[in-house]
């Protein structure tokens, strides 16, 4: 098992190198000038001074080597546009907020979605099931930015219960978390319902009932535990996705998370920030996949040989 894990971790290194290389090459292709942010042309001397200062005129392989070294020593370099801040600062300031938002949204999805799916399965083919599924289908289909806009309009602006934007007190954090969590919540509800219906048909459930166990205990002990395995497998990558995919919610609620920095850095051609954040986000996805693979390996020994 240890060998399997070490091998999997080792394989993430070339993946990361390829990501850095591709991003690096694409950034060089799209053009633009990080040192010019307005209509105003930059005088030649100023442009030259800046290029010199940030080494953007070195041959590409030197820049690439320099960058890779930076990544592996956790130094992502200075921002070319937001002078006086480096990419590490930007990550340190903004990334925790994105994580926080992602975790709250995820918890909301879990706490509401799982029981909703359970009830729908237990009351299969009744109005309870239909309305729960209708509810979750709607929220699965409606994009989060629409949910966000509706929440802001009705709950923040009309009712005045919560602030419209920002990320400081707990009141600020509720609406964005709910808006971002609705989609995954619906997903969880449907997933739990499906697997639970399947589990309820199993022989051991009938046996448990037959031997006289109380219904609540059967569901709580046997059905629920077995139905949650697929949910756990789905939850890992989903959490990663929520954390990295909250850009729009961050924009609408003006949350100073990593999304805003990412979008700004691309439109400003702040190459080092784009690179740094891409590496960071791909790192998260790589780690999420790594964890899933390792979990599979633990849960199902057959995959260790087949996939390793």
């Amino acid at each position: 098992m240890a060998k399997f894990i070490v091998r999997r971790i080792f394989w993430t290194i070339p993946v990361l190198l390829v990501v850095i290389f591709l991003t690096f090459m694409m950034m060089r292709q799209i053009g633009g000038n990080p040192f010019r942010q307005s209509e105003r042309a930059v005088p030649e001397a100023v442009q030259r001074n800046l290029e010199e200062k940030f080494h953007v005129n070195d041959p590409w392989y030197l820049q690439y080597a320099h960058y890779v070294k930076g990544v592996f020593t956790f130094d992502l370099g200075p921002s070319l546009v937001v002078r006086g801040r480096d990419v590490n600062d930007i990550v340190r300031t903004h990334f925790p907020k994105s994580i926080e938002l992602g975790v709250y949204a995820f918890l909301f999805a879990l706490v509401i979605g799982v029981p909703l799916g359970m009830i729908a399965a237990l009351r299969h083919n009744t109005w309870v099931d239909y309305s729960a599924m209708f509810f979750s289908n709607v929220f699965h289909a409606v994009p989060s930015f629409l949910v966000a806009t509706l929440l802001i309009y009705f709950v923040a602006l009309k009712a005045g219960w919560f602030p419209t934007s920002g990320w400081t007190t707990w009141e600020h954090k509720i609406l964005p978390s709910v808006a971002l969590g609705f989609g995954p919540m619906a997903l969880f509800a449907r997933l739990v319902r499906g697997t639970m219906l399947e589990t309820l048909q199993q022989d051991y459930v009938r046996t448990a009932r037959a031997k006289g166990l109380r219904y609540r205990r059967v569901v709580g002990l046997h059905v629920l535990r077995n139905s949650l395995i697929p949910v756990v497998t789905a939850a890992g990558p989903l959490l990663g996705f929520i954390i990295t995919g909250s850009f729009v919610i961050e924009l609408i609620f003006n949350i100073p998370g990593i999304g805003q920095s990412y979008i700004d850095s691309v439109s400003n051609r702040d190459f080092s920030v784009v690179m740094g954040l891409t590496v960071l986000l791909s790192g998260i996805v790589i780690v999420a996949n790594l964890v899933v693979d390792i979990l599979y390996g633990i849960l199902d020994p057959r995959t260790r040989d087949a996939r390793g």
Partner: protein
Amino acid sequence: MRSKTFWLLVAMLVASLALVAAGCGGDDEGDDAAGTEATTGEEGGSEAAEQVITVNWGTEPPSLDPGLASDVTSANILLNIMDPLVKLDEDLNPVPNAAESVETSKDGRTVTFTLRDDLKWTNGDNVTAQDFEYAWKRTVSPELGADYAYQFYGIVGAQDYNGCDPKKDKCAALADKMGVNAVDDKTLEVKLTTPQPWFAQQVAHHSFLAVNKKAVDQFGDKWTEAANIVTNGPFTLERWEHSSAIDIVKDPDWRGAADVKLTRVNGRMIEDGTTAVQAFEAGEVDVLQEGLPPDEIARLKETPEYDQYPGLGTEYFAFNVKNIPDVKQRRAMSLAIDRRSIIDNITQADEIPANGFTPEGMPGFDAINPKSSWAPENADMEQAKQLMGEVANPVTDITIYINDDPGHREKAVAIQASWQELGIDSTIKQQEFQQYLEFLGPPPNNDVDVFRLGWIGDFVDAINFLELWTCESGNNNTNYCNKEYDAAIEEARMTADNDARYELYGKAEKIAWGENGDLPLIPLYWVTYANLEKESVKDSWNTNLLDQIDLTKVVVTE
């Protein structure tokens, strides 16, 4: 069992839907609350007990280093936490501020600033002339790589020092040669390359603020963080949480503190216009400094909180004169545009139709403005068609380039329709801003026939606008080059007398946009800035033509 599940389900639906459902139910209540809030601010009322406001600046200030800042938000914060040598009044005249007096020598090439006695840094040090010398040389130094270093090019030796290559040249020697010199603690002497009567106004720009050397030496490029920064203005930087909040508070020890009413200005950075308007309407923000979404201006204009200011800026559509070489066609295309209709129906912020390039409000405007008959307020389609008929080889298939910021496409479509009537088929191509700038050169890509851009003035002299269209200008993306025009601008540069200089600017304007003008570009309108301001501050919240806000003048009324 059955009923328990039912109640569990009900409880859950309530929990998850509570916000939405109750949000609709609480509708009326919310309106009432907003109503009472809105009536608390009475115009011309007495001073409120609490002088605290929240302003949305719209973006994170990219830098609070006077040498590096190059945008409006940074400038507005800097000009309120620092103490400029001179300030500009509402008519943009220079008013001595940290400098007690400003004297210009007879030949106009030496300007001497004498500092006040009571200038202090927040670390207790006196503000000296050496601080200014240090700050200016630092900004020009090649090591800092400042965008705005060129603001100093009018000072003797500044351009040489800025262009110095540390590998080849002796940069320190060039720094010593630069014409800014602290004669003593109170006297700053500046030597200019030519007489520049606007220099006194130019130093009101944030690039010319003093910087505390100790803070820079101690903290390096982190000296502008709230914990490290040393300032000398009416407000101090209390908190700067990047992309989230920037709060400044009144400095009770500042020399003019007795006249400053505001005790605290909480700054927010809501970038999305719609989100910002919602925050304002929910009462979370007292002032939205610009950034209103173009498609909401019409609605917001009807609210008592709407306010707008003329700005020193020109919006234009320019030609690539190589591709559209016949001046008659260019004139016809300009005549066909209905500026009034574009302003009333598209931009909607009461911009002023432009009949010249230099905007209204610029000193000497009356002498400078060419009153171009080629740029009428309402389209003159008849004359346009007639002129178009006289064009020997009309270019009837053109491409209009615009950048993808909100509002530009609508303008381009309106113009496209006007040109259609002249028999010109145009295609609109939209590009993301950075690609766009690269595409425009100079020289512009061959595919560009017409493009849109705007110009916002840095300082208060028409040279800042008119030098754009000289042959060698780095901002001239039109391929236009007229030696006569260049000669007028060159002569103006050497002319210290205001009236004589304005005449020369007027001459240049006429060469480009007058009766026999070359029409390298079509001036569309002079810009305005639209704000939302709570009625409690609306009276005293005023931005000048350069979009600067002086927070020491703002008062919250009851």
